[in-house]
C-alpha cells in the first residue's frame, strides 16, 4: 500500500460525532423522553451488612404519582453474575436484595412513579426493617478465620477452579531467595477510584407494540448487557432491542449491567417506558468503583541489580459482589510480576469480598494498580543495591523470546525502546550500553 493510496492513515481525522457535540445535537440517554414515561428510583441499604426482616410500602403507596414497587419476587432470575457469559460462576449478585444486603447502597426495592420527584418521595417513605450485622471492611480481615462469611458457598474469596486464589508458579522462589544478595520487600495499597463520568449511568426501557422492549442505554457493553438482561428476565434474546450510542464518559464505569434489567422489568410490568438514571450521589456512592488492591512484594535481588525471584501476594477488594473482579484478578496475575525477566516467580492473587461498594473495571483494570506497585518496587530495589533507577529497569527488562511467569512467550517487547524514548524526551543522558540495547537482543543476561 503506497503512501499516496492512504487517505486516512497519517491524517488528522476530525471526529464523526464532533459536530453533534458542539451543536448540542448529540443524543444521550437522559435526552430521551416519552410522554407516558415513568421514573424508577431505588430503595437502598443504609448500612454495609444486614439481614432484611421486612419492607413496608404502605406510606410510599400513598404518595401521589406512585405507580408500583418491585421486589426480588418480581424478578424471574434474580441472582446472577455478569461474567456468567464467559463461564464464570456461581451466580451471586441479586438484582434486588432478597434476605440480606452486603453493601451500603445495595438495591433493595424499585419504586416506579409518574415523576422523578414522586419516585424520590416514595423511596423516602419505604420503611426498612433491617437487622444490622458486623461488617467486614478490609481485605485481610475478610480472610481471617473469624470473619463473617459473605458468600453462600462459604468463603470470602472467589474460588478459581477449586483454588483459593489465582496462582502462578514459575521456577523456585524459595531457593532463589537463599541465593539472593538482597531481599527487598514492599506493601502497596491503591485506593478505590470513582470514574465520575460527567454523564451518570442510566437507561430508558420502552415496551414496543410488537412485544419487544427497546432499551436506550449508555452502557459501554451493549451486547453483554443485552444478554445478561435477557437471562435475568428469562426472555429470548431477540425480545430485547438495545440501542447504545454516545456514552458521556465511561472509563470502565458503565460495564456492569446495573440499571437495564430492573428498568426493563419495570417497563414490561407497567406497559410504559421507564427511565432509571443515577443521580450524581448514586454515581459516586453506588456505581462500581475501580477496586482497591493490596499487594505484598518480596524480591530476591543480586548485587548487580538483577531480580532473580519475585513473590507477590495480592488482594483485590471486589467489594460485595463479583462484577468483573474475578476476571481482573486473572489479568492481574498475568501482569503483576511486571515486564521484567525474572526466572523464579510465585504469585497468589486473591479476589476478596468485603462489605464495600463493589469494584469493577476501570482503565487498565487489574494492571494499573500492579504497575504502581511494580515500579515503586523497582525504585526500592535501585535504592537497596545502590544503583540508578533507570539502570535497574534496563538490566531487568524483558526481551522477545523470554518466558513470562504464566508461561507466555514474550513477543514484540518494546519496554527497552520506550524507556530510551522517555529518557530522550526528558533530557536524561543514558550510558551507551543502555542506549544500544534492543528488545530483540537474545544474549543471556
Amino acid at each position: 500500500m503506497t503512501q499516496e493510496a492512504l487517505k486516512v492513515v497519517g491524517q488528522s481525522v476530525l471526529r464523526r460525532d464532533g459536530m453533534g457535540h458542539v451543536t448540542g445535537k448529540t443524543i444521550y440517554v437522559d435526552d430521551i423522553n416519552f410522554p407516558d414515561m415513568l421514573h424508577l428510583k431505588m430503595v437502598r441499604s443504609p448500612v454495609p451488612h444486614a439481614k432484611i426482616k421486612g419492607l413496608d410500602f404502605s406510606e410510599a403507596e400513598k404518595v401521589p404519582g406512585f405507580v408500583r414497587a418491585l421486589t426480588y419476587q418480581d424478578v424471574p432470575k434474580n441472582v446472577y453474575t455478569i461474567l456468567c457469559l464467559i463461564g464464570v460462576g456461581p451466580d451471586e449478585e441479586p438484582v434486588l436484595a432478597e434476605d440480606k444486603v452486603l453493601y451500603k447502597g445495595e438495591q433493595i426495592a424499585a419504586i416506579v412513579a409518574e415523576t422523578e420527584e414522586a419516585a424520590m418521595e416514595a423511596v423516602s417513605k419505604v420503611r426498612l426493617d433491617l437487622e444490622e450485622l458486623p461488617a467486614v471492611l478490609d481485605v485481610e480481615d475478610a480472610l481471617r478465620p473469624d470473619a463473617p462469611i459473605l458468600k453462600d458457598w462459604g468463603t470470602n474469596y472467589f474460588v478459581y477452579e477449586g483454588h483459593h486464589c489465582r496462582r502462578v508458579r514459575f521456577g523456585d522462589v524459595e531457593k532463589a531467595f537463599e541465593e539472593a544478595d538482597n531481599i527487598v520487600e514492599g506493601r502497596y495499597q491503591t485506593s478505590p477510584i470513582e470514574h465520575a463520568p460527567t454523564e451518570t449511568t442510566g437507561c430508558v426501557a420502552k415496551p414496543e407494540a410488537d412485544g419487544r422492549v427497546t432499551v436506550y442505554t449508555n452502557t459501554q457493553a451493549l451486547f453483554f448487557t443485552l444478554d445478561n438482561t435477557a437471562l435475568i428476565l428469562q426472555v429470548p434474546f431477540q425480545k430485547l432491542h438495545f440501542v447504545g450510542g454516545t456514552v458521556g464518559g465511561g472509563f470502565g464505569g458503565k460495564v456492569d449491567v446495573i440499571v437495564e434489567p430492573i428498568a426493563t422489568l419495570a417497563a414490561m410490568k407497567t406497559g410504559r417506558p421507564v427511565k432509571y438514571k443515577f443521580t450524581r450521589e448514586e454515581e459516586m456512592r453506588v456505581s462500581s468503583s475501580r477496586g482497591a488492591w493490596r499487594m505484598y512484594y518480596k524480591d530476591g535481588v543480586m548485587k548487580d541489580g538483577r531480580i532473580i525471584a519475585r513473590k507477590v501476594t495480592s488482594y483485590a477488594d471486589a467489594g460485595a459482589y463479583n462484577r468483573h473482579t474475578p476476571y481482573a484478578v486473572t489479568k492481574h496475575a498475568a501482569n503483576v510480576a511486571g515486564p521484567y525477566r525474572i526466572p523464579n516467580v510465585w504469585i497468589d492473587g486473591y479476589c476478596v469480598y468485603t462489605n464495600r461498594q463493589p469494584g469493577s473495571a476501570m482503565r487498565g483494570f487489574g494492571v494499573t494498580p500492579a504497575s504502581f506497585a511494580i515500579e515503586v518496587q523497582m525504585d526500592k530495589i535501585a535504592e537497596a543495591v545502590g544503583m540508578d533507577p533507570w539502570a535497574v529497569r534496563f538490566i531487568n527488562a524483558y526481551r522477545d523470546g523470554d518466558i513470562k511467569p504464566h508461561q507466555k512467550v514474550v513477543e514484540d517487547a518494546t519496554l527497552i525502546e520506550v524507556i530510551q524514548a522517555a529518557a530522550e524526551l526528558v533530557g536524561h543522558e543514558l550510558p551507551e550500553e543502555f542506549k544500544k540495547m534492543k528488545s530483540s537482543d537474545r544474549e543471556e543476561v
Partner: protein
Amino acid sequence: MTTQAYYLPQSVDEAISLLAEHGPATLVMAGGTIAMPLINEGISLPEKVVGLRQAGLNYVSRSNGTVEIGATTTLTRMLTQEEIPLLGQAAYHVGGWAIRNMGTVGGNLFAPPPAGDFAVALLALDAQVVLVGEDGQRVLPLAEFYTGFMTTALTPGELVTELRVPVPKGVTVYLKYGRRQANTPAIVSLAAHLVLDGEKVTHARLALNGVGAHPLRATRAEGVLVGSTLDETAITEAAAAAAEECEPFTDPIASEWYRRKMVNVYVRRALAQVAG
C-alpha cells in the same frame, strides 16, 4: 413532598409575612446554590419555598466607614466592589463563575462546613449581621451568629437581611488551601486583618474556616499578635496557637491532623505576608 409553592416576595416585609403565615418548615433560599442541590437529590423535599432574589436585598452601599451589603448580593458583585478588596479576594475563592453569579453573601453564611469560606473575610473585619423578624430588627456581631455545627442565632421567622462591614484600616490577607486550585472546598481558608502603629501590632483579627464547626476567630492567636512587632517569634507562636485552638474534623477532603498542620502553615504564610 413535591414543592407546592414558590414565593418571590418583593420586599423584606412581604418575606417575613410569608414565613409567619407558612411556618418554620418553609425553606428560604436566595441563590439556590445550597438549597437546590438538596432538593434535586431528593434529600430535602420542602412543601413551600421562599426565594429572596426580588426582595430588595441586592445592594452595596457605603455609610461613613462601613460598607452595607444586602444579603442577596451575589459573590460576583463582591469582585467588582472596590471598597474592601479583602471581600473580593474571599469571594473569588468560592466556586466558579456561574456559582459566584448565583451564590449570595447572606446564603454563604449557611453553607455546610467545610464550605462557607466567604465569612472568614467578614469575621476578620468585625462584620455585623442584621436579622429581621416579625418583632423587628436586631444586629449581631457575626462571631455571635454561628452557634454550632449547622446552627445559627437565627430564630424561626427571621431573615438575614444585611451585612455591615467596617472598612479595614490596616493590612488584610486572604488565603485558601484546597485539594484543587479552584472551585474546591477548603482544607483551610483564612483572612487576617492587622493594624500596625509603627512597629507594633495594635489590632489583630484572624479568622479560619474548614477547621471547626463553623468559620471561627483564632482569638488566642490574635492575643499573641497584639502588642507584638510581628517578628519571627510572634509569627511562630501565633501560628502554633491557631493550630491548637481550632477544632478541625476529618472528612473525605482532609483529615483532622492534616487540617491542623495546614492551619499552622497558612497562618504563618499570611502573617509573613503582612510583615512584608
